[in-house]
Protein backbone atom coordinates (compact mmCIF):
# COMPACT_ATOMS: atom_id res chain seq x y z
CA UNK A 1 0.00 0.00 0.00
CA UNK A 2 2.73 2.41 0.99
CA UNK A 3 4.75 1.42 -2.04
CA UNK A 4 1.74 1.90 -4.27
CA UNK A 5 1.28 5.40 -2.89
CA UNK A 6 4.90 6.23 -3.51
CA UNK A 7 4.66 5.01 -7.09
CA UNK A 8 1.42 6.90 -7.74
CA UNK A 9 2.98 10.04 -6.33
CA UNK A 10 6.05 9.47 -8.46
CA UNK A 11 3.92 9.13 -11.55
CA UNK A 12 2.08 12.32 -10.76
CA UNK A 13 5.32 14.26 -10.60
CA UNK A 14 7.15 12.74 -13.57
CA UNK A 15 5.77 15.52 -15.74
CA UNK A 16 7.21 18.09 -13.36
CA UNK A 17 10.54 16.33 -13.59
CA UNK A 18 10.56 16.36 -17.38
CA UNK A 19 9.68 20.04 -17.25
CA UNK A 20 12.51 20.79 -14.85
CA UNK A 21 14.98 18.81 -16.93
CA UNK A 22 13.96 20.55 -20.15
CA UNK A 23 14.17 23.88 -18.33
CA UNK A 24 17.72 23.06 -17.27
CA UNK A 25 18.61 22.27 -20.86
CA UNK A 26 17.11 25.45 -22.24
CA UNK A 27 18.79 27.62 -19.65
CA UNK A 28 22.13 25.85 -19.94
CA UNK A 29 22.57 26.38 -23.65
CA UNK A 30 20.78 29.67 -23.94
CA UNK A 31 22.58 32.20 -26.11
CA UNK A 32 25.37 29.79 -27.01
CA UNK A 33 25.94 29.41 -30.72
CA UNK A 34 26.75 25.71 -30.68
CA UNK A 35 24.14 24.85 -28.06
CA UNK A 36 23.74 21.17 -27.32
CA UNK A 37 26.76 20.44 -29.51
CA UNK A 38 28.81 21.47 -26.50
CA UNK A 39 27.68 18.34 -24.71
CA UNK A 40 29.50 16.41 -27.42
CA UNK A 41 32.46 18.72 -27.90
CA UNK A 42 33.34 19.40 -24.30
CA UNK A 43 34.33 15.85 -23.28
CA UNK A 44 36.19 15.41 -26.53
CA UNK A 45 38.22 18.57 -26.07
CA UNK A 46 38.89 17.81 -22.42
CA UNK A 47 40.20 14.41 -23.37
CA UNK A 48 42.54 15.88 -25.98
CA UNK A 49 43.90 18.41 -23.53
CA UNK A 50 44.58 15.78 -20.91
CA UNK A 51 46.00 13.33 -23.42
CA UNK A 52 48.38 15.99 -24.71
CA UNK A 53 49.47 17.04 -21.24
CA UNK A 54 50.18 13.54 -20.05
CA UNK A 55 51.68 12.01 -23.16
CA UNK A 56 53.67 15.03 -24.36
CA UNK A 57 54.56 17.05 -21.28
CA UNK A 58 54.92 14.26 -18.73
CA UNK A 59 55.93 11.57 -21.22
CA UNK A 60 53.39 9.28 -19.64
CA UNK A 61 53.13 5.86 -21.30
CA UNK A 62 50.83 2.92 -20.79
CA UNK A 63 52.18 0.10 -22.90
CA UNK A 64 49.70 -1.78 -25.02
CA UNK A 65 46.73 0.31 -23.95
CA UNK A 66 44.50 2.41 -26.15
CA UNK A 67 45.16 5.48 -24.06
CA UNK A 68 42.57 7.76 -25.67
CA UNK A 69 39.74 5.35 -24.97
CA UNK A 70 41.16 4.58 -21.54
CA UNK A 71 41.30 8.24 -20.61
CA UNK A 72 37.99 9.22 -22.11
CA UNK A 73 36.06 6.41 -20.41
CA UNK A 74 37.35 7.51 -17.02
CA UNK A 75 36.79 11.17 -17.76
CA UNK A 76 33.26 10.87 -19.02
CA UNK A 77 32.17 8.64 -16.16
CA UNK A 78 33.82 10.62 -13.41
CA UNK A 79 32.52 13.85 -14.88
CA UNK A 80 29.01 12.50 -14.68
CA UNK A 81 29.45 11.63 -11.05
CA UNK A 82 31.06 14.90 -10.05
CA UNK A 83 28.65 17.14 -11.93
CA UNK A 84 25.50 15.25 -10.98
CA UNK A 85 26.36 14.89 -7.30
CA UNK A 86 27.35 18.55 -7.11
CA UNK A 87 24.15 19.75 -8.78
CA UNK A 88 22.07 17.43 -6.65
CA UNK A 89 23.74 18.77 -3.52
CA UNK A 90 22.89 22.39 -4.27
CA UNK A 91 19.46 21.68 -5.74
CA UNK A 92 17.56 21.59 -2.46
CA UNK A 93 19.07 24.78 -1.07
CA UNK A 94 18.67 26.62 -4.37
CA UNK A 95 14.99 25.69 -4.54
CA UNK A 96 14.04 26.81 -1.05
CA UNK A 97 12.10 29.68 -2.60
CA UNK A 98 9.84 27.23 -4.34
CA UNK A 99 9.61 24.79 -1.46
CA UNK A 100 8.16 27.38 0.88
CA UNK A 101 5.39 28.21 -1.56
CA UNK A 102 3.99 24.99 -2.94
CA UNK A 103 4.05 21.41 -1.87
CA UNK A 104 6.39 19.40 -4.07
CA UNK A 105 8.00 16.15 -2.98
CA UNK A 106 11.51 17.32 -2.18
CA UNK A 107 13.36 14.35 -3.65
CA UNK A 108 12.35 15.67 -7.07
CA UNK A 109 15.11 18.28 -6.96
CA UNK A 110 18.20 16.09 -6.53
CA UNK A 111 16.71 13.35 -8.68
CA UNK A 112 15.92 15.63 -11.60
CA UNK A 113 19.47 17.02 -11.47
CA UNK A 114 20.96 13.53 -11.63
CA UNK A 115 18.72 12.76 -14.60
CA UNK A 116 19.54 16.02 -16.35
CA UNK A 117 23.28 15.44 -16.07
CA UNK A 118 22.54 11.83 -17.05
CA UNK A 119 21.18 12.95 -20.40
CA UNK A 120 24.33 14.96 -20.90
CA UNK A 121 26.29 11.85 -20.03
CA UNK A 122 24.45 9.81 -22.64
CA UNK A 123 25.26 12.49 -25.19
CA UNK A 124 28.91 12.35 -24.26
CA UNK A 125 28.90 8.65 -25.09
CA UNK A 126 28.66 9.65 -28.74
CA UNK A 127 32.15 11.20 -28.88
CA UNK A 128 33.42 8.31 -26.76
CA UNK A 129 32.23 5.78 -29.33
CA UNK A 130 33.60 7.97 -32.05
CA UNK A 131 37.04 7.65 -30.46
CA UNK A 132 36.49 3.90 -30.06
CA UNK A 133 35.77 3.55 -33.76
CA UNK A 134 38.57 5.86 -34.90
CA UNK A 135 41.24 4.21 -32.74
CA UNK A 136 40.02 0.78 -33.77
CA UNK A 137 39.15 -0.53 -30.32
CA UNK A 138 37.30 -3.86 -30.43
CA UNK A 139 33.52 -3.81 -30.42
CA UNK A 140 31.76 -6.84 -28.96
CA UNK A 141 28.49 -8.15 -27.64
CA UNK A 142 29.70 -7.17 -24.19
CA UNK A 143 28.56 -3.67 -25.05
CA UNK A 144 25.11 -4.81 -24.02
CA UNK A 145 26.41 -4.95 -20.43
CA UNK A 146 27.25 -1.26 -20.38
CA UNK A 147 23.75 -0.11 -19.35
CA UNK A 148 24.15 -2.20 -16.20
CA UNK A 149 27.16 -0.24 -15.00
CA UNK A 150 25.60 3.06 -16.04
CA UNK A 151 22.53 2.31 -13.97
CA UNK A 152 24.75 1.35 -11.04
CA UNK A 153 26.62 4.61 -11.35
CA UNK A 154 23.34 6.52 -11.56
CA UNK A 155 21.92 4.90 -8.42
CA UNK A 156 25.15 5.50 -6.55
CA UNK A 157 25.17 9.15 -7.59
CA UNK A 158 21.53 9.65 -6.59
CA UNK A 159 22.28 8.13 -3.19
CA UNK A 160 25.28 10.43 -2.69
CA UNK A 161 23.21 13.36 -3.96
CA UNK A 162 20.48 12.68 -1.41
CA UNK A 163 22.96 12.55 1.44
CA UNK A 164 24.85 15.66 0.33
CA UNK A 165 21.73 17.73 -0.26
CA UNK A 166 20.46 16.80 3.19
CA UNK A 167 23.71 17.70 4.91
CA UNK A 168 24.06 20.97 3.03
CA UNK A 169 20.65 22.14 4.22
CA UNK A 170 21.90 22.08 7.80
CA UNK A 171 25.51 22.87 7.06
CA UNK A 172 26.14 25.11 4.07
CA UNK A 173 29.86 24.58 4.53
CA UNK A 174 29.27 21.32 2.73
CA UNK A 175 29.36 23.16 -0.60
CA UNK A 176 32.98 24.03 -0.02
CA UNK A 177 33.95 20.84 1.73
CA UNK A 178 32.57 18.75 -1.08
CA UNK A 179 34.48 20.59 -3.78
CA UNK A 180 37.66 19.60 -1.96
CA UNK A 181 36.44 16.05 -1.44
CA UNK A 182 35.65 15.79 -5.14
CA UNK A 183 39.18 16.82 -6.07
CA UNK A 184 40.59 14.18 -3.74
CA UNK A 185 38.15 11.61 -5.08
CA UNK A 186 39.16 12.46 -8.63
CA UNK A 187 42.82 11.73 -7.96
CA UNK A 188 41.91 8.57 -6.09
CA UNK A 189 40.03 7.31 -9.11
CA UNK A 190 42.42 6.11 -11.81
CA UNK A 191 41.24 8.29 -14.66
CA UNK A 192 44.51 9.04 -16.42
CA UNK A 193 46.80 6.50 -14.72
CA UNK A 194 46.64 2.80 -14.02
CA UNK A 195 46.18 1.35 -10.58
CA UNK A 196 49.06 -1.10 -11.08
CA UNK A 197 51.50 1.83 -10.80
CA UNK A 198 50.63 2.17 -7.13
CA UNK A 199 51.99 0.26 -4.15
CA UNK A 200 50.13 -2.92 -3.34
CA UNK A 201 48.40 -1.66 -0.17
CA UNK A 202 47.01 1.36 -2.02
CA UNK A 203 45.78 -0.86 -4.83
CA UNK A 204 43.76 -2.88 -2.34
CA UNK A 205 42.36 0.25 -0.79
CA UNK A 206 41.42 1.75 -4.14
CA UNK A 207 39.28 -1.21 -5.01
CA UNK A 208 36.80 -0.11 -2.37
CA UNK A 209 36.13 3.01 -4.38
CA UNK A 210 32.87 2.28 -6.20
CA UNK A 211 33.80 4.68 -8.97
CA UNK A 212 36.93 2.67 -9.61
CA UNK A 213 34.76 -0.41 -9.97
CA UNK A 214 32.38 1.31 -12.40
CA UNK A 215 35.19 2.70 -14.55
CA UNK A 216 36.98 -0.64 -14.56
CA UNK A 217 33.80 -2.40 -15.58
CA UNK A 218 33.37 -0.10 -18.56
CA UNK A 219 37.05 -0.28 -19.52
CA UNK A 220 37.08 -4.08 -19.48
CA UNK A 221 34.34 -3.95 -22.09
CA UNK A 222 35.56 -1.02 -24.17
CA UNK A 223 39.27 -1.82 -24.22
CA UNK A 224 39.54 -5.58 -23.89
CA UNK A 225 36.15 -6.65 -25.24
CA UNK A 226 35.91 -8.97 -22.22
CA UNK A 227 33.10 -9.71 -19.83
CA UNK A 228 33.82 -8.15 -16.43
CA UNK A 229 34.44 -10.59 -13.59
CA UNK A 230 31.63 -11.76 -11.36
CA UNK A 231 33.24 -9.94 -8.46
CA UNK A 232 33.13 -6.63 -10.34
CA UNK A 233 29.50 -7.25 -11.23
CA UNK A 234 28.67 -7.88 -7.62
CA UNK A 235 30.67 -4.94 -6.32
CA UNK A 236 29.06 -2.51 -8.74
CA UNK A 237 25.53 -3.61 -7.98
CA UNK A 238 26.02 -3.84 -4.26
CA UNK A 239 27.70 -0.47 -3.79
CA UNK A 240 25.04 1.21 -5.92
CA UNK A 241 22.07 -0.31 -4.14
CA UNK A 242 23.52 0.23 -0.66
CA UNK A 243 24.37 3.88 -1.34
CA UNK A 244 20.97 4.46 -2.91
CA UNK A 245 19.15 3.02 0.08
CA UNK A 246 21.27 5.01 2.55
CA UNK A 247 20.53 8.16 0.58
CA UNK A 248 16.80 7.51 0.56
CA UNK A 249 16.69 6.83 4.29
CA UNK A 250 18.71 9.92 5.22
CA UNK A 251 16.69 12.15 2.93
CA UNK A 252 13.32 10.83 4.03
CA UNK A 253 14.17 11.17 7.70
CA UNK A 254 15.26 14.77 7.48
CA UNK A 255 13.14 16.25 4.70
CA UNK A 256 10.42 17.65 6.94
CA UNK A 257 13.00 19.73 8.76
CA UNK A 258 14.38 21.34 5.59
CA UNK A 259 11.90 24.16 5.59
CA UNK A 260 13.08 25.56 8.93
CA UNK A 261 16.51 26.12 7.51
CA UNK A 262 15.34 27.95 4.40
Amino acid at each position, binding site marked *: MALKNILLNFKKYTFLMT*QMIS*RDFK*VKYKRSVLGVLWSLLQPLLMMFVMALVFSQMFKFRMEGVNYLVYLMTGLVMFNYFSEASNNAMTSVVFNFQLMT*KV*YIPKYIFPLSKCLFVGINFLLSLIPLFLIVVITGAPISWNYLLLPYVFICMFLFTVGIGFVLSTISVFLRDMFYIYSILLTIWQYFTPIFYDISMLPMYLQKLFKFNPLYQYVTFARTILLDAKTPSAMTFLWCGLSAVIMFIIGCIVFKRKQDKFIYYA
Partner: protein
Amino acid sequence: MAIIRLDSVSMRFNLGIEKDYSFKQAFINFFSFKKKKKKKKDEFWALKDISFKVEKGEVVGLIGSNGAGKSTLLKVVSGVMKPTKGKVEVNGVISPMIELGAGFDSELTARENIFLNGAVLGYSKSFIEEKFDEIVKFSELKDFLFFFIKNFSSGMTAKLAFSISTVVNPEVLIVDEILSVGDIKFQEKSKNKMLEMIKGGTTVLYVSHSIEAIRDLCTKVIWIEHGEMVMIGDAKKVCDKYYEKQMGKKFEDSKK
Protein backbone atom coordinates in the same frame (compact mmCIF):
# COMPACT_ATOMS: atom_id res chain seq x y z
CA MET B 1 -17.00 14.66 6.80
CA ALA B 2 -15.21 17.95 7.20
CA ILE B 3 -13.07 18.79 4.20
CA ILE B 4 -10.38 20.47 6.33
CA ARG B 5 -9.75 19.55 9.96
CA LEU B 6 -7.08 20.95 12.21
CA ASP B 7 -6.59 19.28 15.55
CA SER B 8 -4.68 21.39 18.10
CA VAL B 9 -2.04 22.38 15.59
CA SER B 10 1.07 24.13 16.87
CA MET B 11 4.00 25.34 14.88
CA ARG B 12 7.39 26.22 16.29
CA PHE B 13 10.18 28.10 14.58
CA ASN B 14 13.71 28.30 15.86
CA LEU B 15 14.77 31.85 15.32
CA GLY B 16 18.23 31.00 16.61
CA ILE B 17 19.01 28.68 13.73
CA GLU B 18 20.69 31.33 11.60
CA LYS B 19 23.02 32.41 14.35
CA ASP B 20 23.99 28.96 15.51
CA TYR B 21 25.28 28.09 12.13
CA SER B 22 28.30 30.26 12.04
CA PHE B 23 31.39 28.46 13.19
CA LYS B 24 32.19 31.19 15.70
CA GLN B 25 28.79 30.96 17.31
CA ALA B 26 28.90 27.19 17.40
CA PHE B 27 32.25 27.45 19.15
CA ILE B 28 30.97 29.96 21.69
CA ASN B 29 27.83 27.95 22.28
CA PHE B 30 29.87 24.87 22.88
CA PHE B 31 31.66 26.44 25.81
CA SER B 32 28.74 28.46 27.07
CA PHE B 33 26.76 27.37 30.11
CA LYS B 34 23.83 29.54 29.20
CA LYS B 35 23.17 27.47 26.13
CA LYS B 36 19.89 25.96 27.27
CA LYS B 37 18.41 29.20 28.41
CA LYS B 38 19.26 30.82 25.11
CA LYS B 39 17.56 28.12 23.11
CA LYS B 40 14.24 28.66 24.86
CA LYS B 41 14.36 32.34 24.11
CA ASP B 42 14.92 31.75 20.43
CA GLU B 43 11.87 29.61 20.08
CA PHE B 44 8.92 31.18 18.44
CA TRP B 45 5.49 29.65 18.32
CA ALA B 46 3.86 30.86 15.13
CA LEU B 47 0.73 28.83 15.84
CA LYS B 48 -0.52 27.71 19.22
CA ASP B 49 -3.09 25.01 19.62
CA ILE B 50 -5.30 25.85 16.65
CA SER B 51 -8.32 23.64 16.06
CA PHE B 52 -11.15 24.13 13.61
CA LYS B 53 -13.18 22.38 10.99
CA VAL B 54 -14.19 23.56 7.55
CA GLU B 55 -17.15 21.95 5.82
CA LYS B 56 -17.45 21.57 2.08
CA GLY B 57 -18.49 24.75 0.31
CA GLU B 58 -17.65 27.08 3.15
CA VAL B 59 -15.69 30.22 2.45
CA VAL B 60 -13.48 30.85 5.42
CA GLY B 61 -11.64 34.12 5.94
CA LEU B 62 -8.52 34.49 8.04
CA ILE B 63 -7.84 37.84 9.66
CA GLY B 64 -5.25 39.17 12.08
CA SER B 65 -2.37 41.62 12.28
CA ASN B 66 0.83 41.19 10.31
CA GLY B 67 2.80 38.30 11.70
CA ALA B 68 -0.18 36.80 13.48
CA GLY B 69 0.36 33.46 11.79
CA LYS B 70 -2.13 33.56 8.94
CA SER B 71 0.26 32.61 6.18
CA THR B 72 1.85 29.95 8.35
CA LEU B 73 -1.59 28.47 8.87
CA LEU B 74 -2.18 28.38 5.12
CA LYS B 75 1.17 26.69 4.63
CA VAL B 76 0.33 24.07 7.20
CA VAL B 77 -3.01 23.36 5.54
CA SER B 78 -1.49 23.18 2.06
CA GLY B 79 1.17 20.73 3.22
CA VAL B 80 4.18 22.95 2.60
CA MET B 81 4.96 22.72 6.31
CA LYS B 82 4.34 19.94 8.73
CA PRO B 83 3.04 21.11 12.11
CA THR B 84 5.28 20.65 15.14
CA LYS B 85 2.33 19.32 17.10
CA GLY B 86 -1.21 18.34 16.22
CA LYS B 87 -2.83 16.95 13.12
CA VAL B 88 -3.97 18.35 9.81
CA GLU B 89 -6.47 16.52 7.68
CA VAL B 90 -7.49 17.58 4.20
CA ASN B 91 -9.93 15.47 2.23
CA GLY B 92 -9.69 16.82 -1.26
CA VAL B 93 -7.54 18.34 -3.97
CA ILE B 94 -5.95 21.59 -2.87
CA SER B 95 -4.93 24.43 -5.11
CA PRO B 96 -2.55 26.57 -3.12
CA MET B 97 -2.29 30.15 -4.26
CA ILE B 98 -0.13 31.26 -1.40
CA GLU B 99 2.22 33.06 -3.64
CA LEU B 100 1.60 33.35 -7.33
CA GLY B 101 4.08 32.25 -9.93
CA ALA B 102 5.95 29.85 -7.70
CA GLY B 103 8.61 28.30 -9.85
CA PHE B 104 8.46 30.78 -12.70
CA ASP B 105 11.77 30.86 -14.46
CA SER B 106 12.53 34.33 -15.76
CA GLU B 107 14.83 32.89 -18.41
CA LEU B 108 11.96 31.07 -20.09
CA THR B 109 9.15 32.36 -22.27
CA ALA B 110 5.59 32.81 -21.05
CA ARG B 111 4.56 29.73 -22.98
CA GLU B 112 7.26 27.58 -21.42
CA ASN B 113 6.42 28.96 -18.00
CA ILE B 114 2.79 27.95 -18.34
CA PHE B 115 3.94 24.36 -18.63
CA LEU B 116 6.59 24.62 -15.92
CA ASN B 117 4.35 26.38 -13.42
CA GLY B 118 1.46 24.07 -14.24
CA ALA B 119 3.70 21.10 -13.49
CA VAL B 120 4.80 22.71 -10.23
CA LEU B 121 1.14 23.00 -9.26
CA GLY B 122 0.73 19.31 -9.98
CA TYR B 123 -1.15 19.49 -13.28
CA SER B 124 -0.66 16.76 -15.85
CA LYS B 125 0.67 17.41 -19.32
CA SER B 126 -2.61 16.62 -21.04
CA PHE B 127 -4.48 18.89 -18.65
CA ILE B 128 -2.25 21.86 -19.43
CA GLU B 129 -2.45 21.22 -23.16
CA GLU B 130 -6.21 21.08 -22.92
CA LYS B 131 -6.48 24.25 -20.85
CA PHE B 132 -3.70 26.15 -22.57
CA ASP B 133 -5.94 28.41 -24.64
CA GLU B 134 -8.14 29.14 -21.67
CA ILE B 135 -5.13 30.20 -19.60
CA VAL B 136 -3.81 32.43 -22.38
CA LYS B 137 -7.20 33.97 -22.98
CA PHE B 138 -7.81 34.73 -19.33
CA SER B 139 -4.34 36.23 -18.86
CA GLU B 140 -4.84 38.60 -21.83
CA LEU B 141 -1.24 37.93 -22.83
CA LYS B 142 -1.76 36.29 -26.20
CA ASP B 143 0.67 38.62 -27.96
CA PHE B 144 3.40 38.04 -25.40
CA LEU B 145 3.49 34.25 -25.36
CA PHE B 146 6.98 34.02 -26.81
CA PHE B 147 8.46 36.78 -24.70
CA PHE B 148 10.75 36.00 -21.79
CA ILE B 149 9.19 36.46 -18.40
CA LYS B 150 12.13 38.62 -17.33
CA ASN B 151 10.90 41.25 -19.76
CA PHE B 152 7.40 41.21 -18.30
CA SER B 153 6.09 43.87 -15.97
CA SER B 154 5.17 42.62 -12.51
CA GLY B 155 1.49 43.08 -13.34
CA MET B 156 1.80 40.93 -16.44
CA THR B 157 3.62 38.21 -14.53
CA ALA B 158 0.95 38.23 -11.85
CA LYS B 159 -1.81 38.00 -14.42
CA LEU B 160 -0.20 35.01 -16.03
CA ALA B 161 0.34 33.36 -12.66
CA PHE B 162 -3.24 33.97 -11.58
CA SER B 163 -4.56 32.50 -14.80
CA ILE B 164 -2.52 29.34 -14.40
CA SER B 165 -3.48 28.86 -10.77
CA THR B 166 -7.21 29.29 -11.28
CA VAL B 167 -7.67 27.17 -14.36
CA VAL B 168 -8.30 24.12 -12.17
CA ASN B 169 -11.48 23.44 -10.31
CA PRO B 170 -10.01 22.45 -7.00
CA GLU B 171 -11.96 21.18 -4.04
CA VAL B 172 -10.06 23.48 -1.75
CA LEU B 173 -8.74 26.83 -2.85
CA ILE B 174 -6.20 28.59 -0.68
CA VAL B 175 -5.83 32.26 -1.39
CA ASP B 176 -3.37 34.61 0.23
CA GLU B 177 -4.08 38.22 -0.63
CA ILE B 178 -3.84 37.92 -4.35
CA LEU B 179 -7.04 39.38 -5.64
CA SER B 180 -5.42 42.76 -5.99
CA VAL B 181 -3.45 41.59 -8.99
CA GLY B 182 -3.13 43.49 -12.25
CA ASP B 183 -5.08 46.51 -13.49
CA ILE B 184 -8.65 47.42 -12.55
CA LYS B 185 -10.15 45.38 -15.32
CA PHE B 186 -8.20 42.30 -14.37
CA GLN B 187 -8.97 42.75 -10.68
CA GLU B 188 -12.66 42.69 -11.48
CA LYS B 189 -12.18 39.66 -13.66
CA SER B 190 -10.22 37.76 -11.05
CA LYS B 191 -12.77 38.54 -8.36
CA ASN B 192 -15.53 37.22 -10.60
CA LYS B 193 -13.52 34.12 -11.29
CA MET B 194 -13.24 33.44 -7.60
CA LEU B 195 -16.95 34.06 -7.04
CA GLU B 196 -17.64 31.63 -9.82
CA MET B 197 -15.50 29.02 -8.11
CA ILE B 198 -17.26 29.61 -4.81
CA LYS B 199 -20.63 29.16 -6.48
CA GLY B 200 -19.35 25.94 -7.98
CA GLY B 201 -18.95 24.55 -4.48
CA THR B 202 -15.24 25.09 -3.95
CA THR B 203 -14.17 25.40 -0.35
CA VAL B 204 -12.07 28.49 0.11
CA LEU B 205 -9.54 29.53 2.71
CA TYR B 206 -8.93 33.21 2.22
CA VAL B 207 -6.45 35.61 3.79
CA SER B 208 -6.86 39.31 3.29
CA HIS B 209 -6.36 42.60 5.05
CA SER B 210 -9.36 44.02 3.27
CA ILE B 211 -12.13 43.65 5.83
CA GLU B 212 -14.67 44.57 3.20
CA ALA B 213 -13.60 41.77 0.89
CA ILE B 214 -13.72 39.31 3.76
CA ARG B 215 -17.18 40.47 4.84
CA ASP B 216 -18.46 40.21 1.29
CA LEU B 217 -17.05 36.83 0.39
CA CYS B 218 -16.81 34.75 3.52
CA THR B 219 -19.34 32.69 5.38
CA LYS B 220 -17.10 32.17 8.37
CA VAL B 221 -14.12 34.04 9.73
CA ILE B 222 -11.23 33.02 11.93
CA TRP B 223 -9.35 35.73 13.79
CA ILE B 224 -5.78 34.93 14.79
CA GLU B 225 -3.49 37.00 16.95
CA HIS B 226 0.03 35.98 18.07
CA GLY B 227 -0.58 32.49 16.78
CA GLU B 228 -3.66 31.97 18.87
CA MET B 229 -7.25 31.82 17.76
CA VAL B 230 -9.11 34.79 19.20
CA MET B 231 -12.48 34.23 17.65
CA ILE B 232 -14.24 32.05 15.13
CA GLY B 233 -17.73 32.37 13.76
CA ASP B 234 -20.06 34.42 11.63
CA ALA B 235 -18.15 36.64 9.20
CA LYS B 236 -19.90 39.88 10.05
CA LYS B 237 -19.65 39.44 13.79
CA VAL B 238 -15.96 38.53 13.85
CA CYS B 239 -15.03 41.24 11.37
CA ASP B 240 -16.80 43.90 13.41
CA LYS B 241 -15.13 42.80 16.61
CA TYR B 242 -11.75 42.74 14.87
CA TYR B 243 -12.22 46.16 13.35
CA GLU B 244 -13.31 47.64 16.65
CA LYS B 245 -10.29 46.19 18.45
CA GLN B 246 -7.83 47.34 15.81
CA MET B 247 -9.18 50.77 14.97
CA GLY B 248 -11.00 51.67 18.15
CA LYS B 249 -14.21 52.40 16.28
CA LYS B 250 -17.06 50.49 14.74
CA PHE B 251 -16.85 49.28 11.13
CA GLU B 252 -20.17 50.92 10.22
CA ASP B 253 -18.92 54.24 11.53
CA SER B 254 -15.98 54.22 9.20
CA LYS B 255 -18.27 54.26 6.20
CA LYS B 256 -20.11 57.38 7.20
